[in-house]
């Protein structure tokens, strides 16, 4: 029983990290159709932001709290810049965005290597995140609970923004029918950039969260990016709940499989499960119904 609880909690905390990364992707990939391979590098930028702030501030707890909004802004600004420089030219060629942003991600990784060095760096966790909490015979690490809370908070925030703000309405309008939104007087270009800013900013938040559980290095983005895309693919586009359910489901599946087999076998089995799932629901868990044939 303890084992089951332990593995589920590990799975949920893997899921929370996946969810944080995938949340940004549901905006940029799910809503806009842009396959941003540099998303992982925006996450890395967030993580390095947290690292730099801790170097500057010293107090681990305070620097973490400062790092969250700062990383959001830093990664978001990078995303908006990328959108303005490259991606807005490629909206009619979504597959090519993958390759272009992959090129960008290569350059960003090398940039990180040149600035911070190839070896990983580490941040100190604040004291209030180093303990454990006993729960039903098992122990829950507080840093993982923090990530879980952060992920849920982000989901909540994003839901509120998308459901009940003018910005969210504009984003949804552009996604559902770009041309109609445009003739209705919505500045689609600005909406695109804002969406990209938020999506990339969420990657920055994910990066800060990752500093609590692992080292910070130039390749940290690549380790997560494919998994995060799979979450969006399985979850279906344009629906946050799809990403939420999928992230936790994949996280738990992964951790249970890792316990019963090995990490590498678990990866393969998860992929097989995803392909099998797509036989059942090719468009993912939740889809936005349209009349388009494609």
């Amino acid at each position, binding site marked *: 029983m303890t084992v089951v609880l332990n593995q589920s909690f590990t799975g949920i905390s893997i899921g929370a990290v996946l969810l944080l990364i995938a949340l940004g992707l549901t905006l940029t990939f799910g809503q806009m159709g842009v396959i941003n391979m540099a998303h992982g590098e925006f996450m890395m930028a967030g993580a390095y932001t947290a690292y730099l702030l801790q170097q500057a501030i010293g107090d681990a707890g305070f620097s973490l709290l400062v790092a969250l909004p700062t990383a959001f802004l830093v990664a978001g600004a990078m995303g908006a810049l990328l959108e303005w420089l490259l991606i807005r030219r490629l909206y009619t060629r979504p*597959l090519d965005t993958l*390759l272009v942003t992959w090129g960008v991600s290569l350059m960003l990784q090398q940039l990180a290597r040149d600035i911070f060095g190839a070896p990983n760096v580490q941040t100190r966790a604040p004291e209030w995140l180093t303990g454990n909490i006993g729960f039903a015979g098992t122990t829950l690490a507080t840093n993982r609970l923090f990530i879980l809370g952060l992920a849920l908070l982000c989901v909540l925030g994003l839901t509120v923004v998308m459901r009940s703000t003018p910005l969210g309405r504009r984003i949804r309008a552009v996604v559902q029918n770009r041309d109609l939104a445009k003739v209705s007087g919505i500045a689609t270009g600005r909406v695109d950039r804002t969406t990209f800013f938020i999506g990339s900013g969420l990657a920055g938040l994910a990066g800060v969260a990752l500093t609590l559980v692992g080292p910070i290095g130039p390749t940290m983005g690549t380790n997560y990016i494919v998994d995060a895309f799979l979450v969006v693919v399985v979850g279906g586009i344009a629906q946050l709940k799809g990403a939420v359910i999928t992230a936790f489901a994949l996280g738990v599946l992964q951790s249970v499989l890792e316990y019963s087999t090995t990490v590498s076998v678990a990866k393969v089995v998860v*992929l097989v499960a995803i392909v099998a799932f797509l036989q059942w629901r090719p468009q993912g868990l939740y889809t936005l119904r349209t009349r388009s044939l494609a």
Partner: protein
Amino acid sequence: MTTTAAPPETAPAAPPGKDRSARLRVPAAFLAGAVLLLGVAPLALSDFRLSLLAKYLCFAIVAVGVSLAWGRGGLLVLGQGVFFGLGGYAMAMHLKLADAAAAGETLPDFMLLYGSGDTLPWWWQPFADPVFALAATVLLPMAVAALLGFLVFRRRVKGAYFAILSQALAAALAIWLIGQQATTGGTNGLTDIQGFFGYDLRDPVNQRTVYVVIAVALLLTMALARMLFVSRYGELLVAVRDSEERVRFLGYNPADVKLVAYVVAAGMAGLAGALFVPAVGIISPALIGIVPSIGFVIGAAVGGRASLVGAVLGAVAVAWAQSTLSESFPAAWTYAQGLLFVLAVGFLPGGLASLGAVLRRRRTATTATPVPTTPVPATAVPTTPVPATPVPATANPKGETA
């Protein structure tokens, strides 16, 4: 995703057989390439350079498949490393077993080293048979591609979803290979391969033979791809890329069309992987994960994804640039590679092969547009006073003159 994948900007393939010179141009170019690869290169290059070229030509074989699946079929195949790896591992497993047998052992050296028991794993055993191993280098990748393609295309999973799934497959295979250190050599892969069907690979003369085999294989795959391009199937493939729904309404199943391109491309990648092993003497997960899988695409993107020769030359050029640049400036190469992606895909989607056409278009655009009276759009005028032949007499869909 509500937007459909727009086709890459490519000039349509010239209708076959416009006139005699055009019809001869392709075989002539092919012959020139064959002479260059088989006659000139072995004479002009040192042993070392020739073995490097052999390696690049292996990447070029992958690029032929990429040009077919991606350039013509619009399938962004990001998992070619999987098929390259399957072909490479199939070949390397056989060669390792042959090496072991020559040394009087029953197990490959790395298995003895890791002490993983004294029996060969069951899935290694068939690869002791050379015929099985050689067939597996091509058929195994094709089978995997057929399975994945069937599952994915049948359910109309396409575009980005397909790209990401094929990429995830590459990641999964690489991670699995690394995890099974005792039976796959783990991160190191299968290294130090010495014999090639009884020949010693360390002998430069035999390396030259391997080069010739690879060059011939490249020419054959190019010929095969060319035949597919100009066939009815090739037209159907482009049609699926450009408007899948219309093809479906016409009564074809786009899933089958895409499946063929994907499977053939996988077979080509498998062949390339198999030939890569004797040329370089190693196959490892580092050659087949996400990064190298995307790398297989970049050569084709730079050279011109839809142009066969462009893709091949692009693959060779990028591989050459990588090995020369990354030796002296590893950091600079990474920036250059990233920049290549951004510039080639973002701003010259047809690749360098389309550079001429783009420049020509720009020149005619600047010179011709201010003068609207110039008789440029002669073809656009439907009522030509002298129709050479009555239309119903030559109901030729391609507009060929007999």
